[in-house]
């Protein structure tokens, strides 16, 4: 077994250097394809993070009847808090509401007329943050049913729906493009590796004639493919690190709302994907290419 591994590694190494032009061509293709994949992955991840941010801004606001008891209000809030995908429930008292209104008007430079009113016209409200905007209707209805506490619920289901349609379409679009590019990369890399294997069809034929078992024929090629994939992944990651600074600036400019630690998450994920894709494509490409020679 150890001899077999040593033999395979040695043959893979030999194969790489004896066919250096072919090997470099395969590695270069691998690098370009991995760069394409990594770049797209970064953009799509950024897009999704941005969409998540917008979706997290969806909230349900319910106006509370002026006479509702504090105990009942707490009860309703607890009930909503227990629902799935509810991120937080907050109570905004009448005083706080008018305070906000004044700040809002001041910010817009409008004259504050609330002072002239003898009483506070704004109702208290319950504000519900949603983890997933899909539960909007559910939460809104639950609040509406508590008639003794809730006067009415701010009706912006249609806005939520529009937002969801847009974000879902963009997510789907990102995934589809990523998938298409992934398939393209898959076929291009496998074809390139196939060329390198075809160039050595004679070697495979001779190995078969002298009684080499399939494993002895296959694994050196698979190891060579993995080697090409690893080399390609390392070069790709090197280029990405060089491009990291300017790239992240563009990303933050493009999606202003990205969380601060976005950069390192993406880099770690992309590094994993690039190495995994390189190794898998290289190994699989060789495996598939040699397979057609081992049959029959």
């Amino acid at each position: 077994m150890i001899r077999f591994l040593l033999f395979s590694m040695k043959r893979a190494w030999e194969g790489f250097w004896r066919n250096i032009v072919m090997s470099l061509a395969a590695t270069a293709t691998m690098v370009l394809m991995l760069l394409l994949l990594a770049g797209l992955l970064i953009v799509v991840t950024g897009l999704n993070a941005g969409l998540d941010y917008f979706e997290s801004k969806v909230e349900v606001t319910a106006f509370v009847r002026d006479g509702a008891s504090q105990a009942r209000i707490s009860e309703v809030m607890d009930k909503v808090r227990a629902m799935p995908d509810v991120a937080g429930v907050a109570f905004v008292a009448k005083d706080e509401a008018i305070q906000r209104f004044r700040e809002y008007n001041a910010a817009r430079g409008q004259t504050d007329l609330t002072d002239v009113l003898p009483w506070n016209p704004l109702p208290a409200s319950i504000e519900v943050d949603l983890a997933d905007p899909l539960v909007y209707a559910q939460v809104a209805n639950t609040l509406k049913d508590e008639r003794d506490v809730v006067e009415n619920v701010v009706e912006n289901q249609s806005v939520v729906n529009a937002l969801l349609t847009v974000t879902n379409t963009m997510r789907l679009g990102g995934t589809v493009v990523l998938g298409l590019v992934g398939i393209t990369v898959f076929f291009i890399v496998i074809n390139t590796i196939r060329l390198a294997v075809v160039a050595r069809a004679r070697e495979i034929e001779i190995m078969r004639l002298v009684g080499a078992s399939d494993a002895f024929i296959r694994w050196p090629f698979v190891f060579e493919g993995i080697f090409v994939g690893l080399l390609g992944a390392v070069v790709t990651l090197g280029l990405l690190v060089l491009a990291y600074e300017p790239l992240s600036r563009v990303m933050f400019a493009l999606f202003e709302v990205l969380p601060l630690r976005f950069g390192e998450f993406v880099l770690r994920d992309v590094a994993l994907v690039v190495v995994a894709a390189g190794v898998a494509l290289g190994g699989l490409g060789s495996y598939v290419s040699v397979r057609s020679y081992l049959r029959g």
Partner: protein
Amino acid sequence: MTIATSSSTAAAAAEEGVPAPALTPIVALHAVTKVYAPGRAALTEVNLFIPEGDFVFLVGPSGAGKTTLIKLLIRDELPTSGQVIVAGQDLARVKGRDVPRLRRKVGTVFQDYKLLPNKDVYENVAFALEVTGTPGRIIRPAVERVLAIVGLTLAAKQLPAQLSGGEQQRTAIARALVHEPKVIIADEPTGNLDPLIAWEIIQLLLRINELGTTVLMATHNADVVTALRKRVVALEDGHVVRDEVGGAYHREYW
């Protein structure tokens, strides 16, 4: 004398399930038919019995089925019907993963040598052992032994491109020998060589045969076949039209 009698007796014995007495068949074909495309048979009802230690020429015009026969013997193809037995194994029953082990019992030599151009003579021969997982300490003496047999000890470090055609073919023969096969199958081994070198290769195969290895050689070389008066099996249109010991390349009437 013709071999036809002993051949048919062996076939009959095999059908009854009784092992053929005295002569151990290293290669036996029973009513073998191979059809590639419907209606065009490459081989039709071929019976052939080669006892251990025999030297057999396989002759016939191009397209007669020689190459198909050889492909059947190394299990590159399976017969459409009939039975092919090599080194005691029914090839139809050899599973895919056992084919490599079978190939080590059958040395093959081809017209185009099939050497790896970037490996020297020694490496080309050693390669056959390396790819079958032979330990390194066994490889060196085995390779040196067969290089001595074919007379290439001094050329061990040379690349195929630096060798003459005859030397390249001797390298291929050394590689075929290194597994100590029971039978060597040579497909037109002298096809690319001039007559003098061709004779050298034939002499080498005869010597290997004398050392106990069965040799089956497909050839167009009429002079060699006629001069040596060995067993000759002639194929024509997929049929065995002649099988005689001491035969000539062409049919002789007497």
